[in-house]
C-alpha cells in the first residue's frame, strides 16, 4: 500500500495493484486515507535548516579536534593503561566503525563500590570509576580552559569554575542536568594519572534538589574552605568552594599530592 502511494511499486506489482484497487472498496479507501495522511505531513511539516550558529559551533569543535588531537590521544591512551575491570572499551558506538580498545591493566585501581545515591562524594567516586572505564567521555575535548568554560557556560547559562591545576593538564569537560540544576565534570591528565573534577552549585546542593552533602562536611567547607577524604592511601578526594561552586576533585594519588595540585 505505502509503496503504491510513494511510487515505489515494482513494475510487476503495478497492474495487479490498480486492478485490485478498482474492485476492492475497502482497499481503495485505505489507499485514499493513507495518501491524504502523507500529503498532510508533506505539506505541513517543513524541513528545518540547521541554524548557522550550530554549524559554526561544530566547525569550531572540528578545528579544535584538528589542531589538538593530542588531548584525545592522551586521554584514551591513559585509559588504556589504566587499570580497569573491563578488558574492552567500546567507544561510544560509531556503528560499524565501532572501535574496541583493549585496556591492559598496569596498576590496580580499586573500584569504588559506593552507593548509587545523591551524596555528592559517592557520586563523584562512581563517576570517577566511569571515567576510568571510558563510560564518561568529554563533550568538549581541548586543553584550553577558556574554551571549556565558554562551552559549559553556553550549556548551563551560569558559570562554573575550570581550575588550572599543577601537574595536570585539562583534557575536556561535560555538563549534565537541566531543570533542577546543573553539574559539570572536568577531566585532567597528569603524567601517570587522570584527575577528575565534579562541580555543582552550592544553592542547588543546599536545596537538596540534585545532589546532597552531609551537614558536617558542609559546615567544615564553610568554615575552612576545604574538605579532604582519603578513600585509601592511593586515591583521594578534595572538596573546596569557589564562590558559589562546590568543586570536588579525585585522583589515584595520595592526599598531599592531590592538595598540592588543586590548591
Amino acid at each position: 500500500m505505502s509503496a503504491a502511494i510513494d511510487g515505489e511499486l515494482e513494475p510487476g506489482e503495478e497492474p495487479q495493484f490498480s486492478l485490485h484497487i478498482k474492485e476492492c472498496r475497502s482497499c481503495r479507501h485505505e489507499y485514499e486515507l493513507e495518501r491524504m495522511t502523507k500529503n498532510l505531513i508533506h505539506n505541513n511539516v517543513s524541513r528545518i535548516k540547521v541554524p548557522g550558529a550550530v554549524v559554526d559551533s561544530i566547525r569550531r569543535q572540528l578545528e579544535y579536534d584538528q589542531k589538538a588531537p593530542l588531548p584525545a590521544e592522551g586521554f584514551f591512551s591513559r585509559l588504556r593503561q589504566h587499570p580497569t575491570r573491563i578488558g574492552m572499551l567500546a567507544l561510544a558506538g560509531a556503528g560499524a566503525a565501532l572501535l574496541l580498545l583493549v585496556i591492559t591493566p598496569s596498576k590496580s585501581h580499586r573500584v569504588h563500590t559506593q552507593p548509587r545515591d545523591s551524596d555528592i562524594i559517592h557520586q563523584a567516586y562512581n563517576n570517577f570509576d566511569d571515567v576510568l572505564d571510558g563510560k564518561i567521555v568529554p563533550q568538549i575535548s581541548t586543553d584550553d580552559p577558556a574554551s571549556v568554560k565558554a562551552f559549559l557556560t553556553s550549556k548551563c547559562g551560569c558559570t562554573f569554575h575550570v581550575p588550572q591545576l599543577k601537574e595536570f593538564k585539562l583534557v575536556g569537560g561535560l555538563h549534565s542536568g537541566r531543570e533542577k540544576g546543573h553539574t559539570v565534570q572536568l577531566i585532567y591528565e597528569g603524567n601517570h594519572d587522570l584527575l577528575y573534577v565534579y562541580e555543582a552549585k552550592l544553592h542547588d546542593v543546599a536545596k537538596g534538589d540534585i545532589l546532597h552533602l552531609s551537614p558536617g562536611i558542609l559546615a567544615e567547607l564553610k568554615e575552612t574552605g576545604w574538605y579532604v577524604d582519603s578513600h585509601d592511601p592511593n586515591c583521594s578526594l578534595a572538596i573546596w568552594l569557589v564562590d558559589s561552586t562546590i568543586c570536588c576533585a579525585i585522583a589515584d594519588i595520595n592526599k598531599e599530592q592531590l592538595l598540592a595540585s588543586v590548591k
Partner: protein
Amino acid sequence: MKSLFNDPAAAATSAKHQEFEREAVPHMDILYNYALRMTADPDDAKDLVQETYLKAYRFWDKYEKGTNIRAWLFRIMKNSYINRYRKETKEPETVDYNEIQNFYNTIRFESADPNDLQEKIFGGLLEDDVARAIESLPEDFRTVVILCDIEGLSYEEIAEFVDCPIGTVRSRLHRGRKILRTKLFEYAKKRGYVTHD
C-alpha cells in the same frame, strides 16, 4: 594495536579536514532535521548533530569512500541517539483505527473531490499538531515517516539508512501512517474542526 588517534602529519590532517568539509558537512541539514524530530528539543538536536560530526571526523578513515555518506552519518547519529535518549522501547498504544475509517465512509459519498475530503477529515490542523503527532509515533515508525514524507528519500535509501530490507520499510511506513492518521483525526476532533453527527 592501531590507534585511531594517531596524529598524522599536518598536511594529511588538512587534507582530511578538507575532504570531510566537502563530503560530510553538506548533509548537516538532513541530520539536524531528523534529530529535531526525534528529540523535539533544539538543544538536544544540536548536541546530537555535534556529537555525530565529531565522531564522524574521528572515524573518517573508517568511512568507505563511494558508499552512501548520508547513510553512514545517519547510522552514527542513530547510535548516539540510542545511547543518549533511548528509553523503554515504546509500543504503540492501542489505537482505534475504525473511528476514522467509519467517519471516512460516511463522508466518502458526499464528495468526490479528494481535496475536499482531506479538508473535511484533517481540515484546520496546524503544523504543530502534525509535528506533535509525528513525535508521538514509536521510534521505528517515526524514523521512516520522517525520512520518506518529510525528507523525500527513496525506499532504497531509507533501507540503507535504517539497515533493514525494503519490505520492512514498506510495512513500517504503512503502519506508521495508519497510527498517524488516527492521531491526527483525534486532534482535529478535539479542536472541533471535524464536525459531524
